[in-house]
């Protein structure tokens, strides 16, 4: 058990996987010599060499497109798009190629590739460097999407994504990179598609993922002071997501709040809510409340972004509303 930063846990997972499988290559903008814009790929070039760890030009379409071709030809590429906002430039390769290749070629090809996408705000990076666009990707059959919230899951989900035979998107919240936490020994493993009960509770369920896990736990603490015991479910995987875990929790608490940093409208939370309003309908004793960002681009100024990002107080409000 050691204390490491979230970003370092990903780094460790990348290195461990690369050491075990020489078909794994990494490429992206500034990931090799500079060690990545957030330091996540630091040291990999020195350790694994220039053949397997490469800096690319600023060419997001070709980066993901090349990953598709590489994955179809025997490599296991891990690529990084520096900010999730720039995946707007890679959508064809991701959606029309990577996601569909196995299916549309009749199962002839496997596409073991990983696309790392740092998302989220909180650093006043403004409208084009702060977005959470994961709902787009969860809507695409053929892609898997995971989003770790803890150091342990950062390691485990990165390993799971790399080991997966299908294209997996790793959504990494930028505000988590520097957060420290425990990396257990033996090293953790998590299956994609399994949620984590971050805190058990009986009065209400908060479903969340990524950086909002921390906010949800803080909200649960605040609520506990008033005797409200909230269960916090960290989805960890968004596609597939752990419907049975959420349903089981709802069957215990009968109240549901879903919290994420992404824009609330048409976000990931909408699907969770919609499923629970169908298969979980009989369990519901109150409205399903979502806590997400308002319908606006991520604003730059400190005061604006602080109001913009969902926080523990808003989650508390949401829980109170469904309990009312």
């Amino acid at each position, binding site marked *: 058990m050691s204390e490491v930063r979230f970003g370092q846990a990903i780094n460790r997972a990348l290195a461990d996987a690369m050491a075990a499988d020489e078909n794994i290559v990494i490429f992206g903008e500034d990931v090799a010599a500079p060690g990545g814009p957030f330091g996540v790929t630091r040291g990999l070039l020195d350790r694994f060499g220039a053949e397997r760890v490469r800096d690319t030009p600023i060419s997001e379409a070709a980066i993901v*497109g090349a990953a598709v*071709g590489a994955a179809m*030809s025997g490599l296991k590429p891990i690529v990084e798009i520096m900010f999730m906002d720039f995946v707007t430039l890679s959508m*064809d390769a991701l959606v029309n190629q990577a996601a569909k290749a196995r299916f549309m070629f009749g199962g*002839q090809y496997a596409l073991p590739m990983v696309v790392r996408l740092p998302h989220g705000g909180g650093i006043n990076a403004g409208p084009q460097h702060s977005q959470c666009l994961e709902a787009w990707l969860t809507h695409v059959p053929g892609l898997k999407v995971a989003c770790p919230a803890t150091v342990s899951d950062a390691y485990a989900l990165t390993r799971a994504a790399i080991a997966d035979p299908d294209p997996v998107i790793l959504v990494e919240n930028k505000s988590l990179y520097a957060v420290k936490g425990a990396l257990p020994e033996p090293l953790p493993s998590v299956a994609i598609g399994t949620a984590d009960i971050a805190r058990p509770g009986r009065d209400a369920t908060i479903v969340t993922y990524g950086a909002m896990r921390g906010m949800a736990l803080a909200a649960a603490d605040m609520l506990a002071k008033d005797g409200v015991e909230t269960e916090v479910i960290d989805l960890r995987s968004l596609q597939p997501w752990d419907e049975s875990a959420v349903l089981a929790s709802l069957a215990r608490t009968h109240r549901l709040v879903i919290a994420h940093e992404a824009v609330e409208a048409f976000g990931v939370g909408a699907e969770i809510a919609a499923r629970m309003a169908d298969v979980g309908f009989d369990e519901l004793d109150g409205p399903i409340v979502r806590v997400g960002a308002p319908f606006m681009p991520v604003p730059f100024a400190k005061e604006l972004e602080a109001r913009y990002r969902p926080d523990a107080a808003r989650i508390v409000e949401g829980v109170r509303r469904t309990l009312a």
Partner: protein
Amino acid sequence: MTAANSSSPLDLLRTMTLIREAELRLAQLFADGEVPGFIHLSVGQEGVAAGVCAALSSTDTLASNHRGHGHALAKGLDLERFFLEIMGKAEGMCQGRGGSMHVADAAVGMLGANGIVGAGLPIAVGSALAHQVRKSGAIATVFFGDGALAEGVMHESFNLASIWRLPVLFVCENNGWSEFSPTSKQLAADPCALALSHRIAARSVDGNDVLAVHEMALVLVDEIREGGGPRFLECRTTRVRGHFEGDPQKYREAADAARSEDDPIGRLERRLTADGVPAPDIEAATREAKRRVDAAVRRARSGTAPAFDAALRDVYAPSEAAP
């Protein structure tokens, strides 16, 4: 593969006639409602597919575009499973999920036709990266049209291939048309100039002269295999039919379509005749192609409808394969 194992002119003729007969049959099947969706034929362009693919080995990989029947067949795709696929049958290459625009065959390195203009380029670049990293000795090839030269990803792909000296052959089939619009009005650049600007050695050949295409492809493939990095080959050719079957081509003078003296098959046949190849040997190519196509279509017609649940299971790898 070196010039030593270049294909014979008769081999090239056989490939071209196979493509031609297969596509003319597809046209008929489409008109008769036996082929769903829409299909883009390469009639008149067979010299490019045949000439280039004959310079490749089966471990070399190939990415193609929407007009990919010829590329696929020249790369060695099984004819029966090709028809089965395009007719939407479970026994097709892609189990009827892709159709004409997505024919692929992992066994012969065919990475798939592609419905997205330009999308094959970075795929080939990535495939070449795999060849380079794995030191497989193979190369990647990609066919794309002149219209695709306008896509941004072409530029990104050329650049990446050039700086990493990847073993990839870029083949531009310049038929003068971007769907319903003449490429001359759409593209400021000369195709070779684009490649050259990225320091990719570029050559242009008469794409309707299959021998010239093949000879040039052999040279370029050799250079690439020797570690020379990417190469670009422009093949000037002719789209004889509409953009897709059923296209009334109101935008185009009939004359343009009918320059039969350019036909790569006719040209090679005349050349072989002049070289003294006996007429029966020449005619055998077409006869044999028709026979194979007949058989394939018969087989395809007896194919079964794909099962929905099998398709649903193939969106992801079977979960046992997952960790």
